[in-house]
């Protein structure tokens, strides 16, 4: 025993302590130093009689053992007297154990008023009186421990004890409330529900059980709850016979009806199983937790309605579990045949959609993008798992509208995962519409396609809900179509189309179709959709790879064998509106339809983004004509000489290279077949390199690496990429040769040098260059024109600019922009004038400036996030303000920047600063990484080490002692990592991230992702 639990200096009142539990509590507490008031009326177990003997005997026993105790013979109904005894004898009271009790067991039928009320008086009123008298002392001294004695009979009920059970459970509520009221004053109140053999239970239990239920096995828990080091309060404990436990309330998850919905008796009956289901349950410990479902229901807002077919509250927003599917060229070709492609097998364009070995390449027909998503919905629908709250049969469902979008051209095969969301539910009066949004991602988790299927549910509307958008979209213009495509749909087309996944017998089985009132099976709406898409893509835009999206409304059924007339209006280079009619019946079958095209075809496999490459600024042009500074001409001259001196080189490389230089522009051919270097272009070039003059010079000087230029997008290689590898001889060029060539050129002197870059900007134009004042002027005008913006943002900003210094107040409460510090600002931003201009021009990002330490924000930091409106100010407004200022003759401030400000440089230090911030915000991050990582950065060089463990999460400059892993990379690549533009795996594969030590740790570099 490490330390004995003692009660020295404490005074305890134990009621009913002459026998049984009370006596046991008193003896235990006294034995451990408490001074005890032993209260006992000395009556029998039914409340009759009165005697001092019982209390006296216990007091005697305590004193004999060396303890301190006094006796009290009052009824608990005179609680104040009992407490007074404690005050008189010991001067204080610390512990009250409400233990006194009697029984009047009788079946309810025979229970008298007296049976009822004496029980309530002794147990309830008695506990109240004693506790109430002790309460002020405890509150004043800031300390108290109170025990109520309840019973299993109160909790579970017990035959013949209705009066007793009521009183006992009453004590639980009594204690729960006192626990709350006493908490702040150090008064703890707990309740025990003991099962103990005592005078009161002797009559009903077998002797063996009573022997096991000794009072001595109850008192330790009471004593512990009464100790000053015990934090429990408000608890209910069930114990006895060596068993100790705590009780709490459990509540089923239940059901919640959204407010505004009628809750009928039938609705409750129908969901009764859910009301009483403890499969998912809660344990509210306090009244606020108990209220939580109600609060949540209020917060969820009023019901969005519904009826027996559709429960909008349940269904709207529901997202299905992901489902997977896959397709191959086989599926694509079958689909293309299903929508009538290549009926002329010699039509080369259409043959590409159905023949996987086509010599020009197989081209998946893009409207196939509708199939995987819609099939996923059909599969879910067949399983009855579309969404909870959708309780209609599939026979009510009609395909109303379809929107299909591709994020990039379809690959020839893919494994896809789809999620289906109930995006919208509209009440159209008689009918309802449901919009299912299906997002499909590929094996890498990249979104490939998006579908919106609008289903019309016949006869399911009418709950008075949102009617949804009503406007007509994609209405054909009021002119003759730009193209009309007429095509007969083959009579067996539906039988072919259905093999792509829509097996509804309505499209195949004549008997089934007849049952639905159709003279024969109808064509799938999506088959008509495919025919129309083929017509549009075939005529309006030759390249199906440009397909971006399609939207149609299904207006009428089509029968296979009918003739489809697709009318096409090309509204812009990227948008085509169309409509489809059935010629025989002159009925519009597809209306409000449009296809959108990509301006540029997105690449199939997004290549890793190259590390942020600053806009290349060519090196300054030679300043004087006399300069012997080498230029690219000199380099080519030197190459010619080098090749002449090393003929075996040409033999080995044996390739014709074309160089196209820009800024200044020039072209050179290095023909290593003829061993000849000459200006101009050559038709025989096998490998063409396009590069700026400056970068070319840097490359030949060995200052830039061809590979880096290539990946930085600064070197473009066409033709034989492999041949470009052989260019490394360029860096072997003797610099002396180049210098000699430059001298020779300068010496010749006659050649006119290109004029130095013209000092283009005239003085007046230069001063019309916008300054920050113009931006604020423009801002004022912009805010005036957009009053709703001020209302939305509703913040007063103060901008403190430096170099030149200035202060502006942007008051979005008064909708006013003024110089100076007029209004009390809620959010103050300090930055340089140049950075401010750069930020408003969208060249600099406020967040980067902030993390780069170039923008200081004080006051309401969150409000600074609303500053995005700055970038919405039209540049024209700023220019107009600048012009007005110049015209008005206002002198531009002397220090006004004449050129665009230099971009704020973000480097490794800024990444580390952002990392420290992240570590501070995410205390668990260190433990998740669990490693000491050395970060060695090149160009410019810096070294850092991160100690990321559960105990510590720190980043320091310099070398770590014994890092588990060392990462070596260029600063640009570190920035690319931190910006989320490159992944560690990509950089590693590119050889841009070198890892020494435990490579697996490099898998956990997520903490660098999107730092800046």
């Amino acid at each position, binding site marked *: 025993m490490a330390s004995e639990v003692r009660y020295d200096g404490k005074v305890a009142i134990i009621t009913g302590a002459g026998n049984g539990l009370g006596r046991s509590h008193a003896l235990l507490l006294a034995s451990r130093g408490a001074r005890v008031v032993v209260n006992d009326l000395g009556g029998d177990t039914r409340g009759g009689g009165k005697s001092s003997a019982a209390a006296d005997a216990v007091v005697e026993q305590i004193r004999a053992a060396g303890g301190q105790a006094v006796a009290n013979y009052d009824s608990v109904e005179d609680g104040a007297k009992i407490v007074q005894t404690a005050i008189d004898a010991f001067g204080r009271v610390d512990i009250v154990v409400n233990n006194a009790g009697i029984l009047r067991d009788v079946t309810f039928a025979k229970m008298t008023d007296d049976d009822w009320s004496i029980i309530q008086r002794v147990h309830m009123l008695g506990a109240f009186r004693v506790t109430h008298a002790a309460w002020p002392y405890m509150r004043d001294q800031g300390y108290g421990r109170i025990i109520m004695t309840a019973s299993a009979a109160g909790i579970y009920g017990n035959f013949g004890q209705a009066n007793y059970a009521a009183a006992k459970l009453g004590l639980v509520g009594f204690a729960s409330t006192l626990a709350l009221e006493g908490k702040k004053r150090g008064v703890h109140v707990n309740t025990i529900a003991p099962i103990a053999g005592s005078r009161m239970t002797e009559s009903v239990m077998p002797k063996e059980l009573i022997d096991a239920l000794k009072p001595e096995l109850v008192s330790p828990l009471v004593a512990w709850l009464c100790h000053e080091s015990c934090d429990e309060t408000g608890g209910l404990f069930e114990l006895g016979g060596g068993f100790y436990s705590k009780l709490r309330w459990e509540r089923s998850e239940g059901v919640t009806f959204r407010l505004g919905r009628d809750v009928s008796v039938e609705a409750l009956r129908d969901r009764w199983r859910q009301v009483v289901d403890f499969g998912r349950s809660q344990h509210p410990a306090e009244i606020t937790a108990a209220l939580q479902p109600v609060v949540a229901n209020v917060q969820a807002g009023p019901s969005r309605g519904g009826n027996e077919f559709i429960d909008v509250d349940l269904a709207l927003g529901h997202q299905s579990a992901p489902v997977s599917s896959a397709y191959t060229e086989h599926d694509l070709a079958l689909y293309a045949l299903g929508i009538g492609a290549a009926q002329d097998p010699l039509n080369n364009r259409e043959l590409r959609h159905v023949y996987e070995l086509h010599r020009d390449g197989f081209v998946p027909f893009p409207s196939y993008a509708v199939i995987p998503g819609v099939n996923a919905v059909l599969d879910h629908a067949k399983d009855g798992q579309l969404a909870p709250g959708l309780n209609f049969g599939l026979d009510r469902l009609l395909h109303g509208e379809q929107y299909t979008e591709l994020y990039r051209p379809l*690959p020839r*095969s893919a494994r896809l995962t789809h999620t289906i969301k109930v995006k919208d539910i509209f009440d159209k009066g008689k009918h309802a519409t449901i919009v299912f949004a299906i997002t499909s991602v590929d094996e890498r988790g990249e979104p490939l396609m998006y579908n919106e299927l609008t289903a019309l549910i016949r006869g399911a509307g009418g709950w008075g809900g949102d009617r949804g958008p009503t406007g007509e979209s994609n209405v054909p213009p009021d002119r003759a179509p730009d193209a009309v495509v007429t095509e007969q749909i083959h009579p067996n087309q539906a039988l072919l189309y259905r093999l792509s996944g829509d097996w509804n017998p309505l499209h195949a089985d004549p008997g089934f179709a007849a049952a639905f009132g159709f003279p024969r099976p109808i064509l799938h709406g999506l088959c008509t959709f495919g025919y129309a898409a083929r017509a549009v893509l075939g005529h309006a835009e030759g390249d199906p790879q440009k397909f971006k999206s399609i939207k149609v409304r299904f207006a009428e059924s089509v029968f296979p064998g009918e003739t489809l007339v697709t009318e096409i209006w090309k509204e812009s280079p990227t948008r085509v509106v169309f409509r489809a009619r059935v010629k025989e019946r002159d009925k519009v079958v597809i209306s409000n339809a449009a296809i959108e095209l990509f301006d540029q075809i997105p690449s199939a*496999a997004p*290549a890793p983004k190259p590390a942020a490459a600053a806009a290349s600024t060519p090196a300054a042009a030679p300043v004087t004509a006399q300069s012997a500074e080498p230029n690219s001409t000199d380099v080519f001259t030197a190459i010619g000489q080098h090749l002449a001196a090393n003929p075996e080189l040409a033999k080995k490389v*044996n*390739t014709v290279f074309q160089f196209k230089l820009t800024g200044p522009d020039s072209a050179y051919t290095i023909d290593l077949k003829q061993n000849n270097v000459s200006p101009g272009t050559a038709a025989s070039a*096998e490998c063409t390199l396009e590069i700026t003059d400056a970068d070319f010079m840097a490359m030949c000087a060995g200052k830039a*690496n*061809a*590979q880096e230029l*290539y*990946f930085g997008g600064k070197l473009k290689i066409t033709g*034989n*990429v*492999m*041949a*470009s*590898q*052989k260019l*490394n001889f360029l860096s072997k060029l003797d610099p002396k040769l180049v210098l000699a060539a430059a001298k020779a050129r300068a010496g010749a002197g006659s050649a006119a040098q290109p004029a130095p870059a013209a000092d283009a900007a005239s003085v007046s134009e230069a001063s019309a260059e916008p300054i920050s004042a113009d931006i604020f002027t423009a801002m004022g005008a912009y805010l005036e024109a957009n009053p709703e913006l001020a209302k939305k943002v509703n913040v007063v900003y103060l901008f403190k600019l430096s170099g030149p210094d200035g202060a502006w107040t942007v008051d979005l409460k008064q909708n006013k922009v003024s110089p100076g510090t007029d209004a009390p600002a809620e959010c103050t931003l300090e930055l340089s004038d140049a950075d401010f201009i750069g930020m408003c021009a969208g060249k600099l990002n406020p967040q980067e400036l902030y993390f780069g330490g170039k923008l200081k924000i004080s006051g309401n930091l969150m409000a600074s996030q609303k500053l995005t409106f700055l970038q919405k100010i039209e540049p024209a407004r700023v220019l107009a303000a600048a012009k007005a200022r110049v015209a008005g003759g206002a002198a531009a401030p002397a220090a006004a920047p004449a050129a665009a400000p230099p971009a704020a440089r973000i480097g490794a230090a800024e990444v580390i600063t952002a990392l420290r911030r992240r570590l501070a915000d995410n205390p668990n991050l260190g433990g998740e990484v669990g490693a000491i990582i050395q970060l060695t950065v090149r160009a410019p060089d810096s070294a850092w080490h991160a100690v990321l463990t559960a105990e510590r999460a720190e980043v320091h400059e310099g070398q770590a002692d014994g890092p588990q892993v060392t990462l070596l990379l260029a600063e640009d690549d570190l920035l690319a990592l931190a910006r989320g533009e490159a992944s560690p*795996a990509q950089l*590693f*594969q*590119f*050889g841009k991230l*070198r890892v020494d030590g*435990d*490579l*697996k740790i*490099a*898998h956990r570099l997520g903490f660098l992702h999107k730092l800046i």
Partner: protein
Amino acid sequence: MGNRVNVIGVGMVKFQKPGASDEYNVMASNAARAALADAGVAYSDIEQAYAGYVYGDSTCGQRAIYELGLTGIPVFNVNNNCSTGSTALFLARQAIEGGLAQCVLVVGFEQMEKGALGAKYNDRTNPLEWQADLMNRVQGFAQAPPAAQMFGGAGREYRWKHGTKRETFAKISQKARKHASKNPYALFTEQLSVEEIMAAPEVFDPLTRYQCCPPTCGAAAAVLASDDFVKRHGLKSPVYIAAQAMTTDFRTSFEEDSMIKMVGYDMAEAAARQAYERAGLGPKDVQVVELHDCFTANELLTYEALGLCGPGEAERFIWDEGNTYGGAVVTNPSGGLLSKGHPLGATGLAQCTELVWQLRGQAEQRQVEGARVALQHNLGLGGACVVTIYRRD
């Protein structure tokens, strides 16, 4: 199943550095003579000949074989990049198995230039264009030999996935040198330590120079015959081909942006699976393997492709020395491409020669005790992979 195909004779010449060897026709005819002598048959018994080589003008095969005699038999020139030799072997095996011939000669040779492999024809579509495109997309082009970039890149991808140490790749080279030190036909017979291998100039991370096979000149040959022929000539207990499978690229080589797949992992895995199935054997039944270790990275990948160890277990397999004498299987007892050398057209037949010697118990100091089943893996980018299982009863 067709006729059983027996390898009744093998032979090779010592591999040399470029510039130090005989001309191709001399090397090839010498190897063929050795194989004929080993089989104990005359050139006049040969009904067809298959000649494998990569570099050289058309009909080098005839020029080499004509030195053995001018009997007017069909001669086929075979070119399939680094898997040329075993592709020739594959065709010859088909001829016997299909009953179209009773006895054929296969010879592989290469007279290489100094320096890393590169394209010879720059005026037309490069056959490795798709591989190059993929590499460019996944890791860019570096100033390094393209093959080293491809296999080294596969090594990088494997390292990233499994956290493999650079030294693990070097350890393969150390083993190769150790094996080659006992092989009189090998180019490099000097042993190297892991440290020395690591300290060599880096060609393409994680590969150092000693982890890349050298350009080599050499030739090797084999004589294949049917059971009837064996019986007629009274040949005793010859080595035979229990199964052979050849694969070319699958879609996965190009569509998963994986360097490992691009350099032929799936080709190897599929060829091995087919061969095991046809032979009714598994990796555990094999005692000796000659596999295509053009770079250490590929030997490591091939362990897993052939099932010699489980996926991701190669590093442990290497450090536990499961791949050498005393281990579960001996890989490249000849020293492999890394140390014996890699004359492209000859490699497939040199592997065959080594394994026939091993199964006959004629491998002298490098004999693998109790070798009954041998496996050959020969891979070419472009691509093709041939896996052959040999047995001797």
